[in-house]
């Protein structure tokens, strides 16, 4: 066993942390959050140049990483700085599906993703599906898509959107789901900013024509591939939340050392000091959960998904504790939009609403643990 990062990953971590500290400070981030697109193309290009996007793809796909621990290293740093750019959406969901399923032409996109020229999104969720991946009502019949895709993360800033649709079977059948890679210009989006930053969109599909060239992967068997990219997305999401929790804990520690009431630093009140200690205890649990999910990402799907559900459930619970306690122990200041913690706490809490929440993953864990 070895819990050390490789030298390459250590270097990636250091350079990304330094870059974000210098170029993604709180005023920069607050300006991005208030901008219409909710992201910075400038930052995007610089992250591409730095190799951050390439680190999320394997060598055979034109990158130099792509394993669970590469994802964990990158997203922990992005989370630490509260980065809102749609990297997970583009590289893990969109890029992950192309890398797994793309034909030669479609694979050509990978180079421009890694280079920062192209952004992708996945439109899979539907209003009545909640967090279930197999529940797809959108249909593809006679080369036309009809249905309602909802909360497609990153779609407003994407060039291409991967849309899932059912070609056969009942709404919750595992078989029958296909994917299509559609240029965003063919679609009508209704966009919304999100509580934790970033953008999402709903897409109403009314007889949207898809050609055979747009088909991504074989007919009707997309579900296992979706499950694989979701496991990677959960790894990224958990690592990102871990990074954000580290920032929240650091800010709370600093505040408890410096804020004075009743003539002394509030950290000298045991009622607060012990709760800060609990935050550190839980943070270690969270770190292990992330190592677990990252380390088993390439394992067989059963083992992989059990760790994914373990991590996602744990991060949701610890996230709530750390998010709420860090606000409470700061007092009023943490309630302000401008203060660094506000955005970080929102990202921690809202992460639970992506890729299945605490309850969803508890149920999935029970099912897998009993099997």
């Amino acid at each position, binding site marked *: 066993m070895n819990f050390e990062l490789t030298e390459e990953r250590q270097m990636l971590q250091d350079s990304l942390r330094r870059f974000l500290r210098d170029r993604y400070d709180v005023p920069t981030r607050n300006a991005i959050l208030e901008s219409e697109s909710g992201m910075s193309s400038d930052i995007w290009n610089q992250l591409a140049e730095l190799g951050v996007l390439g680190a999320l793809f394997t060598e055979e796909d034109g990158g130099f990483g792509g394993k669970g621990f590469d994802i964990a290293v990158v997203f922990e740093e992005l989370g630490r700085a509260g980065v809102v750019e749609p990297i997970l959406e583009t590289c893990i969901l969109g890029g992950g599906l192309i890398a797994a399923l793309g034909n030669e032409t479609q694979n050509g996109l990978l180079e421009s993703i890694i280079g920062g020229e192209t952004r992708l999104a996945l439109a899979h969720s539907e209003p009545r599906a909640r967090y279930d991946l197999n529940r797809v009502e959108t249909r593809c019949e006679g080369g036309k898509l009809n249905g309602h895709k909802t909360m497609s993360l990153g779609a407003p800033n994407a060039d291409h959107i991967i849309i899932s649709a059912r070609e056969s079977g009942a709404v919750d059948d595992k078989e029958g789901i296909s994917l299509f890679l559609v240029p965003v210009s063919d679609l009508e989006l*209704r966009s919304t900013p999100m509580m934790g930053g970033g953008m999402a969109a709903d897409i109403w599909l009314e007889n949207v024509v898809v050609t055979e060239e747009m088909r991504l992967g074989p007919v009707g068997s997309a579900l296992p591939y979706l499950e694989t990219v979701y496991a990677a997305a959960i790894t990224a999401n958990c690592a990102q939340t871990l990074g954000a929790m580290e920032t929240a804990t650091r800010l709370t520690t600093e505040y408890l050392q410096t804020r004075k009431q009743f003539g002394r630093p509030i950290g000298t009140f045991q009622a607060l000091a012990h709760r800060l200690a609990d935050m550190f205890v839980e943070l270690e649990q969270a770190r292990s959960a992330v190592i677990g999910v990252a380390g088993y990402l390439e394992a067989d799907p059963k083992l992989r998904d059990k760790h994914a559900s373990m991590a996602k459930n744990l991060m949701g619970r610890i996230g709530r504790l750390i998010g709420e306690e860090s606000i409470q122990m700061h007092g009023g200041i943490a309630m302000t939009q401008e203060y660094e913690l506000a955005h970080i706490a929102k990202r921690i809490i809202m992460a639970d609403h992506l890729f299945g929440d605490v309850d969803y993953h508890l149920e999935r864990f029970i099912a897998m643990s009993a099997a």
Partner: protein
Amino acid sequence: MDLSYTDEERAFQAEVRTFLAEKLPKAMSEKVRLGSGLTKEDLEEWHSILNARGWLAQNWPSEFGGAEWDAVQRHIFEEEASLANAPRIVPFGLAMLAPVLQKFGSKEQCDRWLPRILDGSDWWCQGYSEPGAGSDLASLKTRAVREGDHYIVNGQKTWTTLGQYANMIFCLVRTNTEVKNQEGISFLLIDMDTPGIEVRPIILLDGTHEVNEVWFTDVKVPVENLVGEEDKGWTYAKYLLTHERANIAGVGSSNAGLEAVKRMAKAEMSGGKPLSENPHFAARVAQVEIDLMAMSLSNLRIISKAAKGGAPGLEASMLKISGTVIRQEINDLARRAAGMYALPFASEAVEGSNQPELGPEHSRPVAEQYFNNRKISIFGGSNEVQREIIAKTTLGRMQ
């Protein structure tokens, strides 16, 4: 023991229900139900509807035009009003300043200010907290120096709720720096239009403009605006805080919140079935409901003691803690129920977000309310401060 209302109390409840059914404007209760922001005009309209019925100043003595309700009546009203999605009554003038004036103010002050609270001529805000004086309120630094017929006020207040709507602010100011913190504080009424006052917005993490900073630079305040005696303001401030803590349990608001969660859970789907049938979610809801039922009884016990003249002391601290913990738990359930539709963020502070939000109507305010209601365990004496009070009192008795 008898857990039911008396005949008079039941009659009163029916009267309140009829009033709400007839007089609460539909558009207004719709806004409350959907959690969309109420405007200043909405709040003023609701005040004037209540005032017309004589129900605005619920706890004032009748000599000042109050309804003189006892604690049980106030509880009944608040419960019914919450369930009907009525706006809250803005407390600063009615429930905070007025009792202080009635107890410690001069006759001239009562005659001058109380009618203006009732008819809505004045909108008051509370100028207590400062950047350096939160939980340790007595360390406040805003200075008032007497010069002839005026005080000259310099300093800064913060977290001033709805200060952007207010034309008047009641402030705690330091008039004596030679004595112990608590002994050098005075209670001043200040017209917000006086030169030297600047109100700066603070945007909260849910994107709302609810609080402000209020800055004072050489602000001239006539001495007749001093309430009671100079340097005795801490006594008045503490008296006011006991009134701030009335209705602290927020049973009505929690009941309404829990009902909303149950409605959401029936409409939301999980695994092809209504979320309300999901055993995990159902267990979460049941647990909060159990806590809330017990807390409602605690609340009634304490209220009925207060109605008989007993002063709630420690019990107020206890209700503050359980009331806020339960309310926040309900906010958490609501965001869970919304699933991914908790994600959209409609903020005035974000450009391009004035288009309709995605997802069902019931999901729209849930994440915003979850974050906004983190405040309830911070203000009005934080939950940590309440625990200190309980612990000091109980351990003290042991010694």
